């Protein structure tokens, strides 16, 4: 399994700067990586290469969780010190200010801004599965026994055991929770419809997304101002993707007025006419926009089913700040939303309000099996097609 990354790389979190100029600044070409680039394999003390089983990324960093042997974490990006104290780590979660590590017997949250000798917060965990986390393997960060962990003091928040929390996605200002029964709960800021309750009100406590009741979900994801979930494939006609929240950059895969306007501007610039000079062109533009009026969606306050690609089941979904990425059962990676840092992987800096396949993997005859989004970048795990069954 090989990991690839594309998008924001100003801190070398995808691939390290090869040449540092005298002033130590980022090179233009390397800030935005527009095509999937393989993450360099890390090598440990004994010369064995580091198999990455999980990746998590924040705005300026990336954490890789080693899948074998010592189970260490490797940190890349802004001020990253390889962490030796992390052997035996079972899970990792990163935010812009803190790194949370889970071990067999404890969970620790470290402040990435200081070189502290002790974690900012920690808790001991017992081996018993007597907790609100129903996963047999232990915790599922940011879920912890009895609650969840954030990146600001007091760090730990309690969750009712009745919820039977299975996984939790923390977005820009909101949270999306998946329960063992397949229900979706949301809370936090709602100003952009990201809670999916049909309005713009914020919620202080977890509230079930009623529109999805009766349809068990298998995974949830959250971005800056949007949310997504996948319906369980073990029940009838599963593998569908539902999205809701803000669509200003097309991150919901629905028609976005902002993107339409930007593309109109570009085409009129290319054809050489200045909109202000010819009165008729302004007229035509306004009429065109009025025609599409009902179609544009800037806020989707209830979950909407998004057709990513015909006759495909969605297996994984992840959200960055303003973009979305999914992996299908056919091993394809689709991305859409804000693309100005190359985070869509389509070899361009354009945003898109329509799901598009990342052709790189198809061209390389690779099958994508996992995707994780950082704030402004995307990481995908892929295997060679003929290795699929090995």
């Amino acid at each position, binding site marked *: 399994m090989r990991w690839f990354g594309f998008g924001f790389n100003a801190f070398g979190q995808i691939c390290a700067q090869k040449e540092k100029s005298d002033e130590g600044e980022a090179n233009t070409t390397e*800030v935005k990586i527009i095509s999937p680039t393989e993450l360099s394999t890390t090598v440990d003390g004994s010369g064995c290469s580091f198999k990455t089983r999980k990746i998590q990324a924040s705005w300026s960093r990336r954490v890789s969780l080693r899948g074998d042997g010592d189970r260490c974490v490797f940190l890349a990006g802004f001020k990253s010190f390889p962490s030796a104290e992390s052997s035996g780590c079972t899970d990792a979660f990163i935010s812009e200010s803190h790194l949370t590590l889970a071990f067999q017997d404890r969970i620790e949250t470290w402040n990435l801004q200081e070189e502290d000798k002790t974690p900012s917060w920690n808790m001991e965990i017992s081996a018993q599965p007597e907790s609100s986390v129903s996963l047999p393997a232990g915790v599922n960060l940011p879920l912890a026994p009895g609650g969840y962990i954030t990146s600001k003091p007091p760090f730990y928040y309690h969750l009712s055991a009745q919820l039977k929390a299975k996984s939790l996605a923390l977005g820009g200002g909101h949270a999306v929770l998946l329960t063992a029964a397949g229900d979706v709960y949301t809370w936090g800021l709602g100003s952009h419809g990201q809670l999916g309750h049909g309005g713009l009100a914020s919620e202080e406590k977890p509230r079930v997304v009623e529109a999805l009741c009766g349809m068990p979900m298998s995974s949830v994801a959250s971005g800056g101002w949007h949310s997504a979930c996948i319906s369980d494939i073990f029940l009838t006609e599963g593998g569908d993707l539902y999205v809701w929240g803000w669509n200003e950059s097309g991150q919901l895969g629905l028609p976005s007025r902002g993107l339409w306007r930007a593309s109109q501007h570009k085409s009129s610039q290319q054809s050489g006419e200045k909109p202000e000079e010819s009165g008729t062109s302004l007229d035509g533009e306004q009429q065109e926009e009025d025609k599409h009026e009902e179609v544009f969606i800037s806020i989707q306050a209830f979950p909407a089913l998004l057709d990513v690609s015909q006759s495909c089941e969605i297996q994984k979904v992840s959200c960055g700040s303003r973009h979305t990425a999914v992996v299908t059962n056919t091993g394809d990676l689709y991305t859409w939303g804000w693309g100005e840092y190359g985070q869509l992987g389509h070899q361009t800096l354009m945003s898109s309000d329509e799901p598009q396949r990342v052709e790189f993997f198809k061209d390389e005859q690779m099958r994508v099996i996992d995707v994780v989004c950082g704030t402004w970048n995307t990481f995908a795990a892929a295997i060679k097609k003929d290795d699929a069954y090995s």
Partner: protein
Amino acid sequence: MASLWSKISAVLPASEADFPLQFSDTVQQSVVEVLKWCRRQLYSGATSPGQAALNAQIVLDVSWEKLNMGTWRHVDKEWRRVYSYGCLFKVAALCHEDPLVERLLQAVRTCDLGLLMGAAIMDDILQVIVRILQSEIRRSGEEEHQRDRAEVKRIKTESPHIPEIKDECAVPRIKCPSLETFKTSFLIPLRPVILEGIIDHWPALNKHPWSVEYLRSVAGCRTVPVEVGSRYTDENWSQTLLTVDEFIDKYILKKDGGNVSGYLAQHQLFEQVPELKEDIRLPDYCCLGERDEDEVTVNAWFGPGGTVSPLHQDPQHNFLAQVVGSKYIRLYSPEDTDRLYPHQSQLLHNTSQVEVESPDFERFPEFAVAPYLECVLWPGDVLFIPVRHWHYVRSLELSFSVSFWWS
């Protein structure tokens, strides 16, 4: 003649060491790192403007996301400062080489975004820079006013339909009352009144009479927030950012033939464009308030005929000064609030559900017996709207008003 860059350099700190970049812990070190890259590039001769612009854009993008998280009130001021720094660095990158007008306009817009959404940095340096940019634009002489003159004459000849004001409902008028008279007869009893003759000395009404052409020349390239849609209680109401030129073309002159309403409303234009501030004066009567004079909020209201502010109340006293054009205004006392059916929601509880000029008496029967005062406000008039007095405003023609909210 000094180059644009040398003029801008002159207002920036002399060296990198003199350039402050201090932030609270709210701003993560990784973001400060990018700001440091920008600062270094600003003072090093070696950087390409493309690189500098790229790093400035990173700062703008990351702070923009913070500014849009949650309600405006809760946005940490530190992020607004970061946003302003982003604007500053972007403007510097745009102005390095002899920029053409297109670039200058982009730089002005960038300054305006910083002034509108950021927080003042380095002694309000964006304000200083935008002034330099505006004089640079004027020097390169983009004179399109000739054809506008003909169009503006077209607007002026339209004759609006003036509603008839019944004597028994008319807002009383008084010419230049003394402070004492105003206080005793109107302020303390909270009675609306139109003050005549108190703004005759405003340059906006004599030396620099405000007009569409004057506005274009002083602020044409400046970016301002515009309300689009018939009224703020409507579903399709929204706000957008346009230059004053674009606003005039699209919503005053209606060059694109559209019929959507646009209103430059409730905007502190005079903070953004200090030249316009010199054309107005703070009404003397504001000194009768308890608060300081610099706490008076001054807003501009500029739009075509037909703009409507639905019936609502404000938490402060208001002097509404009419400079250009005329407005129809109706006032209801806070004592009659029950007859005005305010919205229940938190967001709109200060706004009535009733359409004042075409009320639905089936849904709002009591409105028919709610007593009111009404008037047509003409240039030179100043309407005193006492605190929490309900008011409805409709412009009868191209109109420019200035409101003073004081306590």
